[in-house]
């Protein structure tokens, strides 16, 4: 029994050295992780900006804005993320040879996420009682002021769980960045795997994604709790 444990441990250690230590291969993982985080953060930010704007377009009384947002959301939700990434990289950004791939990927994922964020935000705004808008307006606040000071803060509290879920999906979705030859976390581990023919890099990558998502959801939980203090 002890012998078996020793043997297993030894093969594990050997595999670990082969996959991560030799030729500083762990640096591939570290840099890949950095790329994944960078794409995710930029895409989340961009997705939120686009999402909020499109949500207001959808809720607007102006037909044209309504129509633009409707088309955008339909197209993005109706096509695969990978295809969007390839079109944006190989077609739309083809003339911009000097643009870093990380930025192009972030823009692509941001545009993708924006459609989902828009629907989440729209639902959140609609979930706030109509009386809140009336109360704000009856005091003499403009409709923009009422939105900003009264409706949005309450809407954000309502949509936080769904928004957090969208961020989690987005982080994991960036794993397809390898399609445009970007060395993100997934691509880096696959490169190591192709050298060592070991399953270890893939499992290591899965664990890293898991930790990343866990940290994010914990952080969102704390934030949500702080926002909920007015309901205790």
């Amino acid at each position: 029994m002890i012998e078996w444990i020793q043997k297993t441990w030894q093969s594990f250690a050997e595999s670990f050295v082969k996959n991560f230590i030799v030729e500083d291969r762990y640096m591939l993982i570290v840099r890949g992780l950095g790329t994944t985080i960078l794409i995710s953060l930029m895409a989340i930010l961009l997705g939120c900006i686009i999402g909020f704007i499109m949500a207001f377009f959808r809720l607007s009384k102006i037909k044209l804005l309504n129509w633009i947002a409707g088309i955008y959301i339909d197209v993005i939700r109706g096509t695969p993320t990978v295809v969007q990434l390839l079109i944006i990289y190989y077609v739309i950004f083809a003339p911009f040879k000097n643009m870093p791939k990380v930025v192009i990927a972030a823009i692509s994922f941001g545009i993708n996420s924006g459609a989902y964020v828009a629907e989440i935000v729209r639902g959140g705004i609609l979930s706030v009682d109509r009386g809140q808008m009336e109360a704000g307006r009856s005091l003499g606040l403009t409709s923009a002021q009422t939105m900003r000071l009264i409706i949005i803060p309450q809407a954000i509290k309502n949509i936080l769980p769904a928004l957090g879920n969208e961020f989690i999906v987005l982080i994991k979705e960036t794993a397809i960045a390898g399609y445009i030859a970007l060395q993100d976390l997934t691509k880096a581990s696959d490169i190591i795997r192709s050298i060592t023919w070991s399953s270890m890099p893939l499992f290591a990558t899965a664990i890293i994604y898991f930790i990343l998502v866990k940290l994010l959801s914990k952080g969102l939980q704390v934030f949500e709790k702080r926002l909920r203090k007015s309901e205790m």
Partner: protein
Amino acid sequence: MDMIQVSGLHKSFGELKVLQGIDQVVEKGEKLVIIGPSGSGKSTFLRCLNLLETPSEGKIYIEGECITDPKVNVNRIRQKMGMVFQHFNLFPHLTVLENLTLAPIRIKNMAKDQAEALARSLLKKVGLLDKEREYPSRLSGGQKQRIAIARALAMQPDIMLFDEPTSALDPEMVGEVLGVMKELATEGMTMVVVTHEMGFAREVGSKLLFMDEGKILEQGDPRTIFQDPQHPRTREFLSKVL
């Protein structure tokens, strides 16, 4: 001076005619009380006065200014008129004090400490000074409505509109809200009150309107109407609620 002047007011929601020709004048310091069965258009009439509903037809003047003119600045008009809702509509994400100071700070550019001093004097008036740090969810219905009245008063309006302010309250909390409204009435505030509280209507109202099916069927001194209603529909309504 006429605080409110309404002539030929009509309001329809699609095919449904909710108001069918309302004419009314409210003078300064007057307490107009509106009663009537539900669906009679009384709330819609009140909501037209600060343009929460856009009239389909007719003219409304507030302090001599025509507010049904499409060019009028609605927000400026509304600052002169406080509104109290049936369901309070306090801002749940803000403390009681912030509920009161939000509009004076944002609209009137009042300094924060000045707005807070004003807010505290109003909280004292409605008897809830000790609740300034609470969030609305921790208050009872009666307390919420008193805060809502104080919030409307924080804009120092010339007219107060009340849309069934006690209809969503437990019976035992009705009294505290009516008490605040009575105090406001004795101070000379111009008030328009839609209510089902007949006692309040009789005691505080300087003029009573009975509405049904979008029309004013009877109006006059509340005591006279309660004692001797002229219109058969008024008689029928009062016999059911009194």
